[in-house]
């Protein structure tokens, strides 16, 4: 389904529970995109949002529409919900309620859109005066965000989910309007393990990941478990902030890590480790870090939120283009941002890099940027939280995914800055050869041999 399809058409599936995600053809989508005016598109998004709110269950909506007809439905809904007003409010780019904002980030390349938007002027372009504040670790980012010292922050994509369901924090409604980067992580091993490339020989290894609630933790666990290694019994996984990882690898405290860049490349640059596998080879186009804000910020300052999200999406669109990557590397490498040698950042962003074993590899999509927060990403992350015992009890996967990953907002703003949003909010994907069906999260969790749930 396209984001701009008519929600009053009973044939349109709205919640995107169909397993294929690419369900609507690209042609159909493009036609809709070109034919309609921008205002009309924005209007559609509002109509969709309202219909979704009224009929959380897609089937009920379709049955209702078939029974009463689209016109009657529209009239009926307008009775108790001022659709016209809502559309206006959503389309109007009102003045931001507050222009001086603080956004926290961790100095890693995942945060590229958030960081580069500062030196390259994307925040000022959208009328904001944003201070980007470097922060020491994920727990501190979480606490500062919850304490409202930061208006919005760079987080790991599982963190808003964890905060919302109350894993590792008090449950507080948190939202994730945009993913920052996809791919861009790697497993790095110490030089002395040059000849132990088979994960089955890793028993007794000590690994570092940046945070418990991180894609890094889930990907590393997934990767070793697929090779028959139990991540809780056969190896040790400890949390180490990214900046301290290379120092620990060098001191022989750990055997390797699954870490964000530039940490991996920095280990190679200093001759301390080599890149064993890029995370894109575990799960092609997996999400990693995210731009997150509290639900309170989103609802009390809608204009500011919209301007901020637009700036981030705009920066993401710019970062997507390979020809801009060198310029971005030079902009974010100085001490005020990542504080790394330019060549290290450049190797990460351009994908032409030294692997630590004497080879120069060329992987242009080593890291990529795509803001769209697929609901199925959230569902996968929650299946892993469940799998490793971080979530006890039962949760409504689809509901939490919908509430935290604000796909609709992202889609609309992607459109405004000239990106093509995907059709639908859910897609299936393949992790290490195993397909994932977002409609059946429980079966997926049960299908693993090694699990804690």
């Amino acid at each position, binding site marked *: 389904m396209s984001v701009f399809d008519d929600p009053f058409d009973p044939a349109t599936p709205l919640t995107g529970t169909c397993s294929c995600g690419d369900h609507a053809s690209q042609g159909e989508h493009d036609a809709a995109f070109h034919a309609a005016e921008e205002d009309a598109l924005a209007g559609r998004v509002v109509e969709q949002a309202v219909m979704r709110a009224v009929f959380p269950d897609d089937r009920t909506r379709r049955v209702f529409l078939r029974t009463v007809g689209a016109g009657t439905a529209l009239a009926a809904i307008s009775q108790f919900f001022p659709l016209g007003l809502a559309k206006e409010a959503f389309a109007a780019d009102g003045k931001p309620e507050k222009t001086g904002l603080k956004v926290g980030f961790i100095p890693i390349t995942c945060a590229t859109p958030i960081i580069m938007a500062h030196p390259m002027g994307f925040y000022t372009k959208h009328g904001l005066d944003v201070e980007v*504040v470097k922060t020491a670790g994920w727990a501190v980012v979480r606490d500062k965000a919850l304490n409202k010292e930061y208006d919005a922050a760079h987080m790991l994509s599982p963190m808003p989910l964890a905060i919302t369901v109350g894993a590792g924090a008090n449950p507080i409604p948190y939202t994730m309007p945009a993913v920052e980067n996809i791919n861009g992580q790697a497993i790095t091993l110490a030089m002395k393990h040059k000849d132990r490339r088979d994960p089955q020989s890793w028993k007794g290894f000590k690994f570092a990941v940046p945070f418990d609630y991180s894609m890094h933790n889930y990907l590393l666990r997934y990767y070793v478990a697929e090779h028959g290694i139990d991540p809780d019994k056969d190896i040790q996984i400890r949390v180490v902030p990214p900046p301290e990882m290379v*120092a620990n690898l060098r001191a022989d405290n750990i055997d390797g890590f699954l870490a964000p860049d530039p940490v991996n490349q920095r280990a190679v*640059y*200093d*001759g301390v480790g080599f890149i064993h596998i890029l995370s894109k080879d575990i799960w092609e186009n997996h999400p990693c870090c995210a731009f997150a804000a509290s639900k309170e910020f989103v609802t009390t300052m809608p204009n500011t939120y919209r301007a901020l999200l637009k700036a981030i999406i705009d920066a993401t669109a710019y970062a997507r283009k390979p020809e801009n990557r060198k310029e971005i590397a030079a902009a974010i490498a100085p001490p005020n941002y990542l504080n790394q040698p330019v060549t290290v950042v450049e190797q990460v962003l351009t994908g032409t890099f030294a692997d630590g074993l004497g080879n*120069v590899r060329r992987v242009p999509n080593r890291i990529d940027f795509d803001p769209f927060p697929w609901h199925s990403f959230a569902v996968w992350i929650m299946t892993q939280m469940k799998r490793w015992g971080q979530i006890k009890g039962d949760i409504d996967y689809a509901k939490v995914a919908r509430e935290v990953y604000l796909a609709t907002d992202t889609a609309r703003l992607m459109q405004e800055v000239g990106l093509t949003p995907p059709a639908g909010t859910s897609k299936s994907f393949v992790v290490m050869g195993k397909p994932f069906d977002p409609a059946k999260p429980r079966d997926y969790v049960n299908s693993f041999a090694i699990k804690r749930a």
Partner: protein
Amino acid sequence: MLSAKPWGPALLSLLILAVFLGAWHAATLPEKGAQVVDDEYAKLVGKSAATGQKSAMPGPADVAKKIWSHVNDPFYVRGTNDKGIGIQLAYSIGRVLVGFALAALVAIPLGFLIGMSPTVYRALDPFIQVLKPVSPLAWMPLALFTIKDSGLSAIFVIFICSVWPMLVNTAFGVMSVRKEWLNVARTLEVRPLRKAFRVVLPAAAPTIMTGMRISVGIAWLVIVAAEMLVGGTGIGYFVWNEWNNLSISNILSAILAIGLVGMLLDALLARLARAVTFPE
């Protein structure tokens, strides 16, 4: 005898420094390794990695150069996250002084009370004994959670670590005021308040000052760790930021600066302590 001459110790200090720098220089001489990778690869990695080694520790000359650059430009501001070492030190000193002052405001009156009244002493002793040995950094997560402000949390951590030595020393100083002096005061029928300020306080002042001196030393030790944890500003953040960049020269510069400031703080308190000491 060497120590009999006034320049003896200074000479010995210089000699120790020279030996240390010489050994450091010799240990960090760049190893002449042949490049083991092709040129394209060598361009992408550090010099040491190109010769198949780990990056090396910087020598004294590199560090001296770095220190010189910091001394030349200590107060630059190149954005929120990149400020000169002078500004960072000022932030840290500010936090330490605020936390320390608050601790003094609480600890000295409370210590006085504990010292004067055996009942209060026995009632509070278990709490003091349990809380005193807790590492101040262990309070950080709790502080962030309850105070909800990272700047205030750092100050709170300084407060909690400097409160104990002052409290214990004040109580001890007050308790060990000579009985004869108190008896004289009683004979002269001095009122309690007057006795506290004119007899007990002057008598206990040297011990109280010793407590304050220990406290400020601990506070300065703790601020670096606290700032590494919460980040943002301060010399601790500077060290963390340069650790992030694996820049050992910058970290060594910061270590030297931290040491010098710590020494100055200690010297300041020592001078104050001398001012309140009286000959018996």
